[in-house]
């Protein structure tokens, strides 16, 4: 007897992905497209033209009420008090011991309304974490099922999306958003993304997602738009050296170690994890995230051991070919004093030590 297939969650676009012939994978319990025709072509489409991603698996949590800001600021590392309505902030949710519960985007909708975009597989954990710490006059809603999310990314993303909305897109600053409409449906249009390119992430009701997907593909056809899967999303974010939960960051990694000190505001008042972060800052971290480039023949991949002078020194958090740079790159944890650039390291590629060198990140930075 064959085992029953696991019950995977699906986005409103599942049938479309299958019709487009996507290769589907179980991504944290979601049935998601990893690639359509070619991951490399999808990657290049986003760097050179425009790509469309279904990221409806991402979670959303809404925080409302008189003390919404107090709750958000007590739970996140960045300072949400600095946000104005229509602004977005990258931030961390931490445990008391300073490790990551998740990395999130905080959108300030209004003084008493914050909209959090969280990682798909962390959604329920994040929600519980927030509810547990909600000692304020605020309500917390696990709203993932209320939203689909489409990411339009690449240098022609604005031209593509502008054809479908009366909202002027050019004035929307990076990490800002506007609530408006796209093809007549209410939508939250944020100038954010996870690719290292310009682009937009559009949040809308699930019922409108399939229609908008098709419309975006038609609008982008003249620019050479491609539907893109999670495979290209991963190579794009790796080139931009953006953290991925369960890789660069997880429950045992602090923002100091991950090079994410810039999302921590120690001066904003108390927040969950602050005491542990203060202690670690005092003591100093023992390990740090570093970028590397393979110099020998071989590809360092997620989880591979990193050695220095023949002894184990750390591990690869994310690694693989960079289609844009035509190099094999990655990120790894190393002892703090070894984590500066220009260090010779070896990545253990399936039993063989292959030479690599630490390099600055991001590996790729778009020219504006």
């Amino acid at each position, binding site marked *: 007897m064959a085992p029953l297939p696991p019950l995977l969650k699906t986005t409103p676009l599942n049938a479309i992905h299958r019709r487009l012939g996507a*290769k589907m994978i179980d991504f944290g319990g979601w049935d998601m497209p*990893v*690639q359509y025709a*070619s*991951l*490399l072509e999808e*990657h290049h489409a986003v760097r050179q033209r425009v790509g469309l991603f279904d990221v409806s698996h991402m979670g959303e949590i809404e925080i409302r009420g008189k003390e919404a800001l107090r709750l958000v600021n007590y739970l996140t590392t960045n300072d949400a008090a600095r946000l104005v309505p229509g602004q977005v902030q990258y931030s961390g949710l931490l445990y008391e011991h300073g490790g990551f519960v998740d990395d999130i985007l905080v959108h300030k909708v209004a003084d008493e309304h914050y909209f959090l975009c969280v990682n798909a597989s962390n959604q329920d954990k994040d929600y519980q974490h927030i509810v547990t710490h909600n000692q304020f006059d605020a309500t917390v809603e696990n709203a993932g099922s209320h939203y689909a999310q489409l990411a339009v990314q690449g240098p022609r993303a604005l031209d593509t999306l502008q054809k479908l909305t009366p909202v002027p897109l050019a004035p929307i600053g990076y990490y800002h958003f506007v609530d408006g409409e796209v093809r007549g449906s209410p939508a939250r249009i944020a100038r954010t993304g996870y690719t290292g390119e310009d682009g937009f992430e559009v949040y809308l009701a699930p019922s409108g997602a399939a229609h908008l997907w098709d419309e975006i593909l038609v609008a982008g056809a003249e620019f050479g738009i491609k539907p893109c899967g999670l*495979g290209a999303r991963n*190579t794009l974010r790796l080139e931009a050296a953006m953290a991925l939960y369960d890789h660069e960051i997880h429950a045992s990694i602090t923002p100091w170690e991950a090079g994410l000190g810039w999302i921590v505001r120690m001066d904003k008042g108390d927040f969950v994890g602050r005491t542990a972060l203060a202690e670690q800052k005092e003591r100093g971290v023992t390990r740090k995230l570093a970028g590397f480039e393979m110099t020998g*023949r*071989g*590809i360092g*991949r997620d989880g591979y051991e990193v050695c220095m002078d023949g002894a184990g020194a750390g591990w690869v958090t994310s690694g*693989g*070919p960079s*289609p844009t740079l035509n190099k*094999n790159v990655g990120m790894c944890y190393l002892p703090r004093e070894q984590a500066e650039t220009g260090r010779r390291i070896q990545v253990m590629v*399936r039993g063989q030590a292959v030479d690599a060198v630490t390099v600055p990140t991001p590996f790729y930075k778009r020219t504006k």
Partner: protein
Amino acid sequence: MDPENLRYTKEHEWVRVEGDTGTIGITFHAQKELGDIVYVDLPKPGTSIQQKTTIGSVESVKAVSDIYTPVSGEVVEVNGQLAESPEILNKDPYGSGWLVKIKLSEPDEAAKLLTAAEYQAYVGTESS
């Protein structure tokens, strides 16, 4: 799709026997599952290899896959084109994307491998 004159393994390699030489490659199904191939690691000429052992690897952007040799013998030639242009493995897995040529030490091995029809049936059950 899978040529009739080749023999196949459940690990998705093929072998073409001509005289005492076997040419080895990966199947159309294998390259399709892997996606865009970016790196191929092959043994050097002169290496002795045993049937069903790992002789190298094929890597796509996303994944690594071992190459198991379908036949035993000595590597006499390696497809040098793959170092520069690994994508030919995607484009022509049964032709210019061959991996290595082997001087067979056990010429009877190949005949015991899967025929094209048997391999296709196997791939059908594996992917259903």
